């Protein structure tokens, strides 16, 4: 599993990589989810494969967070902890796994309001944008 690049922020190297990977995955999954769901529910098999690919990426992050929990806690200030994104990623994962079912699990899908609400809890939108911004600035420096 390849995680994303690390930013120049106050976290140790591995934790920083996890942090950035989590923020980008959250953003990308939220961005892509509506079209994926529409395509799967319209019978597009390729979209089902794409949903599984996204689900696998989130699953890798989720398992890594558990396996390396102590390292993340020790290596990341609490206010930017990637664990803040865990509830939103779990809801996305359930929806994406629902898209891999035959037939797709429509009840597990997130409507527009639920999807928007993922970033409203715990000021997650600011967290995500700040981490992505820090990563982009580090890339540009």
């Amino acid at each position, binding site marked *: 599993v390849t995680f994303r690049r690390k930013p120049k922020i106050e976290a140790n190297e591995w934790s920083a990589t996890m942090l950035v990977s989590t923020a980008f995955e959250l953003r990308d999954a939220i961005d892509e989810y509506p079209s994926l769901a529409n395509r799967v529910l319209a019978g597009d098999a390729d979209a089902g494969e794409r949903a599984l690919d996204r689900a696998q990426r989130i699953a890798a992050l989720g398992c890594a967070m558990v396996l390396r929990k102590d390292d993340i806690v020790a290596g990341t200030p609490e206010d930017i902890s990637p664990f803040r994104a865990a509830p939103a990623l779990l809801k996305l994962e*359930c929806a994406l796994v629902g898209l891999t079912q035959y037939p797709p699990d429509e009840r597990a899908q997130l409507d527009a309001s639920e999807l928007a609400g993922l970033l409203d809890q715990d000021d997650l939108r600011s967290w995500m944008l700040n981490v992505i911004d820090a990563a982009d600035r580090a890339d540009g420096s």
Partner: protein
Amino acid sequence: VSTSETYELIDAPLEPPPPGERDEPKDHFYRHVIHGVAILDAIAAEYRVLLPAWQSGSPVPRPVVLELAGTVAAVIQSALRRAEVFQSAPEAEFRPMQLIGALEQLLYSLVLLTDDPEAVGELPLAVEELDDLFEAAIIRDALADGPG
């Protein structure tokens, strides 16, 4: 258990009903705990067989793994749609989020079994780690009491 069968299970009223005065949030909580633990137990048994096969490079049927993951995902998503019910349950008595956490770890691990073992490495739950999840009081007690 397919996802549609899972929903039939978790939507059906509990018989006998939960102790104390009956109300809808409490019913929702108990239905998801009792069926969630039973599903965790059943799918964990499947996982204990699938994991060593996947680790050794034997073909693991993807549709089977995805159906198991879909069942776990259905329970979690249904429970989290009323997260306040879980979060408001007495933490000291039930620790209900331990059940969601256990289902979460099983879900992620199952999804990784659909990927290449060389790419994924040791990320999925080991069998011993899975066993540890069953030490959570809410899971142990629900299994001891059985459905209802």
